[in-house]
C-alpha cells in the first residue's frame, strides 16, 4: 500500500471520527429559564437552523412559557412540537409565539420541529 493510500485512510478515519464526535458527542449544559413577573418560567428561544438555547432547564410544578422567535423562512422549522405536553405551535417568520405548559414530572423532554430534524431539550428538575 502506497503512502498516499495510507494517508488517505488516516484522513478518512479522522474525518469519520470527527463527524461522529461533532454531531453525537457530549454537549454543554443548557440555559436556565428565568421567572418573570407573571409567575411563569420564561425563556426566549431563537429558531434559526436549530433552537437557541437548545437545552432549557425549568422546575417541575411551575408553569413554563417559551417564546419562540423564528428568524428564517425555510419551512422545516415552521412548527414546534412538545409532544410530551401535547402542545404545538405554528411559528410565522419574524413573530414571537408563546407556548405555555405545566411540566408536572421531573425528567428530560424533547421539543422538535414537525419533522424531528431540529431538536431541543427541556430538563425539568
Amino acid at each position: 500500500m502506497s503512502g498516499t493510500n495510507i494517508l488517505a485512510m488516516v484522513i478518512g478515519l479522522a474525518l469519520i471520527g470527527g463527524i461522529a464526535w461533532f454531531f453525537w458527542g457530549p454537549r454543554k449544559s443548557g440555559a436556565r429559564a428565568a421567572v418573570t413577573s407573571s409567575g411563569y418560567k420564561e425563556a426566549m428561544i431563537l429558531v434559526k437552523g436549530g433552537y437557541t438555547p437548545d437545552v432549557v432547564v425549568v422546575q417541575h410544578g411551575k408553569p413554563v412559557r417559551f417564546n419562540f422567535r423564528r428568524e428564517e423562512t425555510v419551512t422545516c422549522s415552521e412548527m414546534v412540537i412538545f409532544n410530551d405536553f401535547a402542545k404545538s405551535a405554528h411559528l410565522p417568520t419574524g413573530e414571537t409565539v408563546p407556548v405555555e405548559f405545566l411540566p408536572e414530572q421531573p425528567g428530560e423532554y424533547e421539543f422538535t420541529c414537525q419533522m424531528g430534524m431540529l431538536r431541543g431539550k427541556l430538563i425539568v428538575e
Partner: protein
Amino acid sequence: MIETKTQRSQGAARDPVCGTTIDPAQAFATRTRGLEMLYFCSERCVQQYDREHISSATTGVSGTGQLRRIELAVADLGGQQGAKRLEEQLKALPGVWQVTTNARARLLRIAYDPDKTQVETIVGRARAAGYTLAASTTQLDIGGMHCASCVVTIEEALKATPGVLAASVNLATQQAHIEYVPGLVDRKGLARAIEQAGYRVRAESVPAETALDRTEQDRAKEYSSLLRKFWFAALVSLPVIVFSYPQFFPGLRDWLPPESSALRIAWAFLGVLTLPVMFGGGSHYFTGMWQALKHRQANMYTLIAIGVAAAWLYSSVAVAAPQLFPSQALAQTFYDVTAVVIALVNLGLLLELRARGRTSEAIKKLIGLQAKTARVVRDGTEVDLPVEEVLGGDIIVVRPGEKIPVDGVVLSGNSSVDESMITGESIPVEKHAGDEVIGATMNQTGSFRFRATKVGKDTALSQIIRLVQDAQGSKAPIQRVVDQVAHYFVPTVMILAVAAATIWFVFGPQPTFIYALIVFVTTLIIACPCALGLATPTSLTVGIGKGAEQGILIRSGDALQTTMRLQTIVLDKTGTITKGKPELTNVVAERDFDEDELLRLAAAIERNSEHPLASAIVEGAMARTLALPEVTNFKAVPGHGVEGEVEGKHILLGNARLMTTHHIALGRLVAETQRLADDGKTPMYVAINGQAAGIVAVADTVKDESVAAIAALKRLGLEVVMLTGDNRRTAEAIGRQVGVDRVLPEVLPQDKAHEVQRLQLEGKTVGMVGDGINDAPALTQANVGLAIGTGTDVAIEAADITLMSGSLAGVVTAIEISKATMRNVRQNLFGAFIYNALGIPIAMGLLYPFIGVLLSPMIAAAAMAASSVTVVTNANRLRSWHPKGTQREKEKRS
C-alpha cells in the same frame, strides 16, 4: 332602578334635577341612590337623570352610590334547579340586591351596589359554584412598550377598568390577554384604558387561527423565492452543461479540444458562472447548513451544501492548478454537478412545498366556515356587526339561508338547520325555542332569534379548529422510531460518504481521485432525510383533517394509531346504542277496551306525574293526536304508581303491587307483561274502575343507525360488547336486538372503568364508546375513548376521539380513517426507508464491482427530489378517501 309604589316613603320630596318639590305619591318616576329614594316630577327630568347616572348593560357606567345592573350569560345554568341554586349563591353575597335568572335564555340579571361588591366577586362566586359564565377573552397588540415596568402599569390600568376580570401583559409578544365581562366593557373600552395609561393599541389583534394564515403567507413567500432560485439555477445549468462536455457538441468539439488552453478558459468562465448559482440559487443550503452546524446538528441542507461545494472546489482546483494533479486526465471539472443539482433539488423543494400546502386543506376549510358578520339586536334595532364584536348574551337574528354566526340558544322562531359541516350528519336538524344552535352551521327555511352563549374562541367551531390543529401537530408513536433514525441519519450518511470515498481512493480503479469524488458527492446527494421526516406528519395532517370533515375529532396521533389496533369495542347502552330517552312502545288493551281510549286515559293521568317514564306516555299520546282530558283527585303512590279520576272514571296506573293492593285480577296480562319485560321494555298496568284494562309499555329505543353500525364494526373484525346497568334479561334482549357479541349487564356506573380494565386483562386492546360525561373514567381507562356528543355540549376534552354526529356510525368511520391513515403512513415510511436503503449503497458504488453501475450525482439529485415529492403526493392521496363501512350497510338495508 324603577321601584314599586308600595316602597315609597311618605312626605314631600325634591326632584334632584329641576329642584321642584313634589308629593312622592304623585311622582312621575323614582330612582334609588344608595339607600336614598329620589322622586321625579316629569319624564324629561327622569330621562336627564338616567342619562347622567343610570347604568346599563351595554355601557357599564354608573355614578357612585347608584345600584348597578349587569346581565351575564351563563353557559351551563342547568335548568330551573341550577338557576335557583345560583340565585341563592349570589344573593348571599353582601351588596347584591337582586338576582334573577332566565333559565331558558340562560341569562343572569344582577343588581348590586358597586361600593360593597365588585363584578369580579360576583363572577368569582358563580364560578366557584361550578357555573361557566360567558366571559370573553381578547388579545390586544400594544405599541410603545419597552420595559418590564410597562407590563405592570398596563395590567393595573386594565384591572382597574370595570368589567375586567383578569389581565396579563406579555412583554415579549407585546400583547395583552384580557378576560372581561362583555356587558360591562368592550374592546374599545379596553383599548381606551391602555391608551390612558400612555400606550398605543395597534389595530385589531388577530385570533389564533390566522397563525396558520401567516404560515401560509410565509410558505407562499418561500415558494416564490425558491421558484426564482430554481429558474436561475436552471438557466445557468444549460450553458454549463454544454461547455462541460464540448466533445458532444459538433461545433464546440473543434473549437475546444480536450486539454487545450481554450477549454481551460471556458471552464474558468463556468466556475465564475456557477458561483452565483451556489451562493444565490443555493444560498439556503449554505445558510441552512451553517445554522445547523452552530447547533452541532446536520440536515438535508448540510448534505447538499457539502456535495455541491466539494464538486465546485475540485473543479476549481483542476482549472486553476492542473499541475497539482498527477495526470491531466484527472484535471476535470464538475461545475455541471453544482448547477444541475441545485436546480433539481430546488425543483423538488418547490413541488414538495406545493403538495404540503394541500395537506392542511381540511383545516383551511374549517376556518373558512366561520361567519363574517352577525345581525345583532342592539338598543332594539338590528345592526350588522363583524362576528368578532358579538358578545356573550347578545340577541342575534338569523334569516333563511344565512349562516349562524356563534353558538347560542334559540329564543323564538322555528327553523331547520344544516349542521353537516360540524357534525357530519347530512339530515337538517329542527330547531325550536330552547334548542341549541352551533355557530358556522347553515340556517335553511325559517328565521329565528337566538341568544349568544359562546363567542370568539369558545365556540364549538373554534374549539374544533384548535383541537384539530393540535392533533395535526402531535406525533404518532410510530414517529418516535423515525425521529431516532432521523437523529442519526445525516451524520451517518456523511460518515458513509467519507468511508466510500476513502475505499474508492485506496482500492478503486483509475482515476481513483475522480471516482472517490463522484462517489462522495453522489452519496451525500442521494440521501433524503426529508422523505423520512415528512412521511408521518403529512399523512397524519391529512388523516386528522379528513376526520374533522366527517365530524370525527381525533385528539392526537397516538389515538389515531391505537384506533387501528382495537380488538374489542365496548358500547355503553344508554345514549350510545339507544336514544337515552324512553319512548312509548306498546299499548295492550284488554277485551272491551279500546287501545286509543286506554292510552288517552293513561296519558291524561300521567300528565300530572313527574316520573321520567310518564312524559314518554304523554308524548306517545300526543303523537297519536289524542286530546287529553282533565284529571281530579290525582295521587302518586311512591313505588307503586299513580291514581286519579278522569271523566268520572277511576284510573290506576302502575306496577303489579299497585294492582294487588287494589285487589285487581290481572289475568292474561301477567304473561303479556312478562313478554314485554323480556324484550327490555318497562310495562305498566292500567286499571279502569277497578278492572284491569290493559298495559302501556315504554322503553329506551334503539337509535336507527345502531344496528347497521354494530354490524359494520363486527365486519371490521371487532368484538362488540354492550355495557349496561340493566338486569341481565333486559340487557340480553337488547343485545340480541342490536346484534352485539357480548353483554355485560348490571354494571354500576362507577364500575364501568373496572369492566373495561377486565377486558384489557384478557389481553385485548379496548375502545370504549360513551357520552363523555358520565363515562369519563371508563373512556380514560380504555386504550381509546370515543365520546359521542351532539351540538355544543360535546365533552371534547374527555375523550381521545369525539364523534360530533352522535351516531355510532362515526365509530366505524373513525376506525376506517385510522386504518387508511396508518396504511398511508406505512407506505410512506416503507418508501422512504427502501429508497435510502437502496439509493445510498448504489451511490456508494456497491454495484460497481458486479455490474459496473455507478450513479451520476445529477441522477442522484433527481432521485432525491422525486422521493420527497412522492411521499407528500402519497399523503395527499388520502384526501380523496371516503368512508365506506356504514354506507354499504345502508345500501344493503334499502
